């Protein structure tokens, strides 16, 4: 039984982590491509259209990876989490089926037109197909996060005698207080990834002294989109999402902030430290007094419940993992804001393209928003454990009863091998597209 749960969780965690490397870029990048295309329609300067076309190539490759790694996600609810699917399918099946019907058809139908139809459709319709692809990808994110939100904070349901969850209020799935903050927070995170990719590739072009005209456009666009989204990801969306955790999952909040004991007169905010769960303390900590209370309740002496106030049976299963995920996300987010502020100042002073160290930093930053987004999702998911449906259905009670651990390990190994190959192919091909660079065309 222990092994079954372990391999089921590992397989889901591995496949979802790998999958989400791709949509986080496509969601943000689709908006930026629509921006380039819009800019071209307004100014009729070819550079913008060429930029849109260049990023469409990266987008198409990412999209294909996202699709092929996404289908296993939907299947795994049934293959590995059959009991969970049986009990809650009447509810989360709604939002997942809606995702398929509303967003995947929209994306896939218009992506073909967007990629191959520029000549056929003319510029205005081509812009429109791009916009619809963007809309489809964001709608997909919305419906997935609606599903996620129901698992974090179940609403609009009743539980029958046989343990099945049935829906009794469809509207509640979408007015769930968990949904909007999480969705906006996630979309801003996705924009940060695409901004750093665009800016980082631009910095590479400037430093490499090849395609440097495009390099400047990419750096400028990436820095501006990146600064706005990294500010918004912290405030108000991140703040808002954290307040939901305080309100609905206080034990998770205590664990992710590393608060073992309730502190009289207000809680400190922990910047650095290693949780020692066995002895219920934090090693090597660096903390600032009272800040956490202020950030949470806008009162310096507000009480934040520590882990000591809760029964161990409801503790998040992996407290150190949760704590590190959260701190990595917040730490990286702070670094992003700092770097992008400096870059924006230099941009404003028209010195950015000559400030080498910022360009180098932007280039090396490309992997970090991926890490921050992944850490953010680990915070949400580890924070929900030991529950599948918060406070109602435990993870151990959701797995497929008849699939043995040996079979799951077999498929897990298969996924690891296959995704390793996919990852290598992706890096090779994306590298090739980036190295070749944008092509200049004359339309006007």
């Amino acid at each position, binding site marked *: 039984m222990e092994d079954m749960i372990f391999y089921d969780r590992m397989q889901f965690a591995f496949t979802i982590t790998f999958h989400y490397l791709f949509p986080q870029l496509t969601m943000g990048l689709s908006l930026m491509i629509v921006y380039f295309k819009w800019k071209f329609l307004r100014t009729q300067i070819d550079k913008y259209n060429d930029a849109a076309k260049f990023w469409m190539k990266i987008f198409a490759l990412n999209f294909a990876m996202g699709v092929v790694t996404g289908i296993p996600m939907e299947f795994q609810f049934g293959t590995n989490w059959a009991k969970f699917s049986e009990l809650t399918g009447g509810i989360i*099946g709604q939002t997942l089926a809606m995702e*398929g019907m509303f967003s995947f058809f929209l994306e896939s139908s218009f992506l073909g037109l967007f990629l191959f139809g520029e000549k056929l459709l003319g510029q205005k319709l081509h812009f429109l197909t791009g916009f619809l692809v963007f809309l489809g990808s964001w709608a997909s994110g919305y419906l997935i996060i609606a599903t996620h939100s129901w698992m974090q904070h179940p609403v609009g349901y009743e539980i029958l005698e046989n343990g099945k969850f049935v829906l009794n209020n469809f509207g509640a799935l979408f007015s769930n207080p968990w949904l909007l903050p999480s969705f906006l927070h996630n979309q801003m995170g996705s924009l940060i990834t695409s901004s750093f990719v665009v800016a980082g590739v631009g910095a590479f072009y400037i430093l490499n002294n090849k395609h440097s005209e495009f390099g400047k456009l990419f750096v400028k666009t990436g820095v501006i989109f990146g600064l706005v989204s990294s500010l918004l990801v912290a405030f108000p969306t991140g703040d808002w999402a954290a307040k939901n955790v305080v309100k609905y999952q206080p034990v998770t909040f205590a664990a992710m902030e590393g608060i073992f004991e309730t502190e009289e007169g207000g809680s400190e905010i922990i910047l650095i430290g290693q949780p020692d769960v066995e002895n219920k303390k934090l090693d090597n900590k660096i903390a600032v007094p009272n800040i956490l209370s202020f950030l949470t309740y806008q009162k310096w002496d507000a009480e934040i419940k520590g882990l000591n106030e809760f029964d161990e049976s409801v503790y998040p299963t992996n407290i150190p993992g949760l704590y590190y995920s959260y701190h990595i996300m917040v730490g990286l987010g702070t670094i992003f804001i700092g770097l992008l502020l400096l870059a924006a100042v230099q941009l404003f002073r028209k010195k950015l393209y000559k400030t080498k160290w910022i360009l180098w930093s932007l280039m090396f930053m490309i992997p970090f928003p991926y890490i921050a987004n992944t850490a953010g999702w680990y915070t949400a998911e580890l924070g929900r454990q030991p529950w599948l449906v918060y406070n109602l259905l435990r993870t151990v009670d959701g797995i497929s009863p008849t699939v043995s651990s040996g079979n799951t390990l077999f498929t897990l190994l298969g996924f690891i091998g296959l995704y390793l190959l996919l990852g290598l192919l992706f890096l090779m*091909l994306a590298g090739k597209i980036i190295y070749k660079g944008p092509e200049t065309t004359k339309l006007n």
Partner: protein
Amino acid sequence: MELFWYIVLMAMFTIYVILDGYDFGAGIIHLFYAKKEKDKKAIRNAIGPFWDANEVWLIAVGGVLFFAFPTLYASSFSGFYLPLIMILWLLIFRAIGLELRGQIHNKIWEAIWDKAFGIASLLLALFFGIALGNIVRGVNLGMVTDGVSAHEPHFFFLPLWNSTFSPHAEHLGIIDWFTLLLGVIGVVALAIHGANWIIFKTNSDLNQKLKQVVFNLNIVLLILVIISLFSWHIIDPKPFHNFVKYSWLWIFPIITFTGIFGLFKVKSFKKDGFGFLFSTLFLFGGLATTVSSIFPNLLPSTNNVNPSLTVYNAAAHEYGLSVGVYWFVIAAVLVAIYMVIQYRVFKGKMDDVGYGEH
């Protein structure tokens, strides 16, 4: 309400088989008959702008199954664990075969992805046929041994095969001679369907040869279908009881055979699309005949202890199913609009689309 969602689900599944079926079939033709680069290119162009959207139907079918019949979804996806995961791997190989081939111009690179696309298409057609065979044959629900269930009555697990390859063994396997027969029918039927699509959508030099291929494969298909009909009573003692009860159901087998016999005239069709039309009729009729022969069962039980999963006992609760109708109707209209746009923009012959040449 259950019946409405049953019809929706079956309709969507049939659309999926017809649409992605021509993709798989094109892949099978590509594997065996496309020797020259020109022919391969014609085949890629014929499915290029469509295959991705066609595959979305699989995700949509999965989504609707999950939402409307969660018990069936949970039971069958965990019970058919290994083949389903393998289908996922094959879908991945097939998709990257199509998408990555054009990224590097090198003979070895192209040969690798051509084979990946072709072999994955062939195996997918085989697996989907076998899956259909498993559903009509039924499974040991609850994993009963000597009259005692080892699990809850709707759960089961099947290994890929058992030593006897018999659809009668107490402990069944996914592959036995009956399901394998349906798998082969799947491969042959989809190869015909794919060839018809290529004839319909391209002016390729291959087309004359493909008409002969369709004709020959059609003979094989007819023989296999007749064998399957004569062996059907082995897995179901009363295979035609629904057809006795509801005589209008005979329309489905009639459509199936119209499709097969129509295809024997493939060489004299005036329009290139006729072949595709007839293979579509065959697929539609064949699927409808098969699922209506087991209705109202969705997954029959092969033991006497646990009941079969039916349209009624595997469905979600009433409120969810009713409220789902509203969004589903809106979504279905939108999907129809997208499809009309897509197939109008890429109407006619596709030889000049230049798919995969980014």
